[in-house]
Each structure stands twice: as structure tokens, then as C-alpha cells.
């Protein structure tokens, strides 16, 4: 079978996938940066005050519901995400967020996986391309 004919299948498939994934990534959809999306994102980042691992989005305790109402009201009032989180952090302390505050030591948390990924990729490439040594 000639190379062109063999390649036809994969090429068509790649084209189909590319289009599908482009559409699926929401490239052609109208912008969804609505208030609801912002509220959902903020609720995922704030920890439920009574619990240890849950976000206020996942918990239905009274303090969580109160915080969720506050987030909704603040977004509606036009406050920015940074301002809202700063107010909450000021009241409860830095541990109320499910991620450490950005900047400073927090960069270690993200730098390490990135460095590992880059390093692993480079090492993998090197190890796999190393040819068999003459014995």
C-alpha cells in the first residue's frame, strides 16, 4: 500500500479531531465570563470555615452558606476577585483559602511540578535516545 493511501486514514482522523477539539474548547462560543462563573470559581477557592478539606461550594454548614451569600453579594456589588478574597482572608486568616496566597513561597508549590515536568521530559528524551553502548 502506498504511503499516501496509508496516510489518508490518519490525516482525515487528525482533521476531524482537530475540528472537534477546537469547537469543544469553546473557541466559537460566546464569552462566558459571567458573574455566575466568577462566583463558582471564588466559591471553589474558599475553604469552608468549619471543615478541613471542603470548599464553601461543597459544604452546607451555616458559616459556608453565609460566606457564599457574601461572595454573591460582593460580586454583584462589583468588587474584584482580589478584593473579595482579601476581605475574607483578613477576617479568617490565610488558611481560609484552599491555595496559599500567590507570590513568595507559594511559587515553590508551582515551580516544583513545572521543573519536574521539564526535567522529566528532558531526561526521558535523553534516556530513550541513548544508544546501546558497545560491550
Amino acid at each position, binding site marked *: 500500500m502506498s504511503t499516501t493511501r496509508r496516510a489518508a486514514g490518519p490525516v482525515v482522523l487528525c482533521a476531524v479531531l482537530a475540528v472537534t477539539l477546537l469547537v469543544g474548547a469553546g473557541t466559537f462560543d460566546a464569552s462566558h465570563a459571567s458573574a455566575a462563573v466568577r462566583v463558582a470559581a471564588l466559591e471553589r477557592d474558599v475553604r469552608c*470555615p*468549619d471543615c478541613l478539606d471542603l470548599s464553601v461550594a461543597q459544604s452546607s454548614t*451555616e*458559616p459556608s452558606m453565609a460566606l457564599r451569600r457574601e461572595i454573591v453579594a460582593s460580586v454583584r456589588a462589583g468588587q474584584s476577585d482580589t478584593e473579595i478574597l482579601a476581605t475574607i482572608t483578613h477576617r*479568617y486568616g490565610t488558611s481560609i483559602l484552599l491555595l496559599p496566597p500567590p507570590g513568595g513561597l507559594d511559587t515553590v508549590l508551582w515551580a516544583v511540578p513545572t521543573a519536574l515536568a521539564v526535567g522529566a521530559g528532558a531526561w526521558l528524551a535523553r534516556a530513550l535516545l541513548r544508544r546501546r553502548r558497545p560491550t
Partner: protein
Amino acid sequence: MRAPRVRLAALVACAMLAGVLAFLATRPVEQGATPVASPLIGTVAPDVAAWTLSGDHVSLAALRGRVVVLSFFASWCSPCRAEAPNLVAFAWHQHVTRSRAVLLGVVFSDSDAAASSFAHAFGLTYPILEDPAGAIANDFGVVNLPVTVVIDARGRVDEVLEGTATTNQLDAAASRAMRTAA
């Protein structure tokens, strides 16, 4: 002879891990509450006479001869929420060992309704004193919550703790207060 890479790697790993383990070994366990050098320690505690949320009357004078632990809290105070289960466990331990130590909650700058629902939500099994005018808090110099005051059987203030007290800390504080009064 090829370079002993495994040996080098193993020794480097040993050194790094030793550092990590030493770090972990020096971590504090149970941050807990910190003792405060209050001017009240060693003096006779200011008298407290108040109504509880359930309508009973409590006074420190009537409790002379027993260790009394006062826990100042509010429904809006989030470390108090973390502390609540520790207080319940502490009350249970004292009950089970028949130590005659008494745990009393004191409402600090909060409505009785909110304090009531806090007590209900956390299953607080001990009496909670109302302090509508903030007089008790003022007498004991309470500014930051939560505050725990330990009073021995002679009515003297033995310890003042600021922060989220753990059950072990409360048990230990009560035991110490019982020993000083003996």
C-alpha cells in the same frame, strides 16, 4: 571502573532525607492555645453571677471548692468553632473521671440567639452564661477570642489561655489546677 553513580546518588539521597526528617521531627504538634501572662493569675477571680441560656443561675461563689474553667466564645469566632469539639470532649473527660471540674461558657459580644444556635449546632453540653453588658469579659480582660480561664478550687485564677485550646491542654490545665489547690 565506572563512576559509582549509585553510591553517590544513594549518599546524596541520604543527606537530603536526613534533613527532611530532622525538619519533620522538630515540627510542633497541636499548636493549641498559648498561655497568657495575665495580671489576674494568682489573684482571686472577679466574682461572676449570671444567668445561663437555659434560664439557670450560676455564680462562682457557689462553685468554690471545685475547679472552674471559663470559656469565652462567640458564634462569629471561627477558632471558637474549631475549639468547640475539644471543649465538649474535655467536659466528657471530667464527667467520666468524676473530677468535679466545671466548664462554663461565656457569651462574648454576641446575641443570645446566635450563641444558642452555636451551642445547639456544636452540641455544647455545658452551661453557657449570658453576658449582655460585657461585664464578665471586661472583668477578665478578654479582648481576643477564644480565651480560656482556669480557676482553682480556692477561687484563684490559675491560668489564662488564648487561642484554640486542645482537649489535652484543657485536661492538663484542669489537672494542674486541682494539684495547686490540694
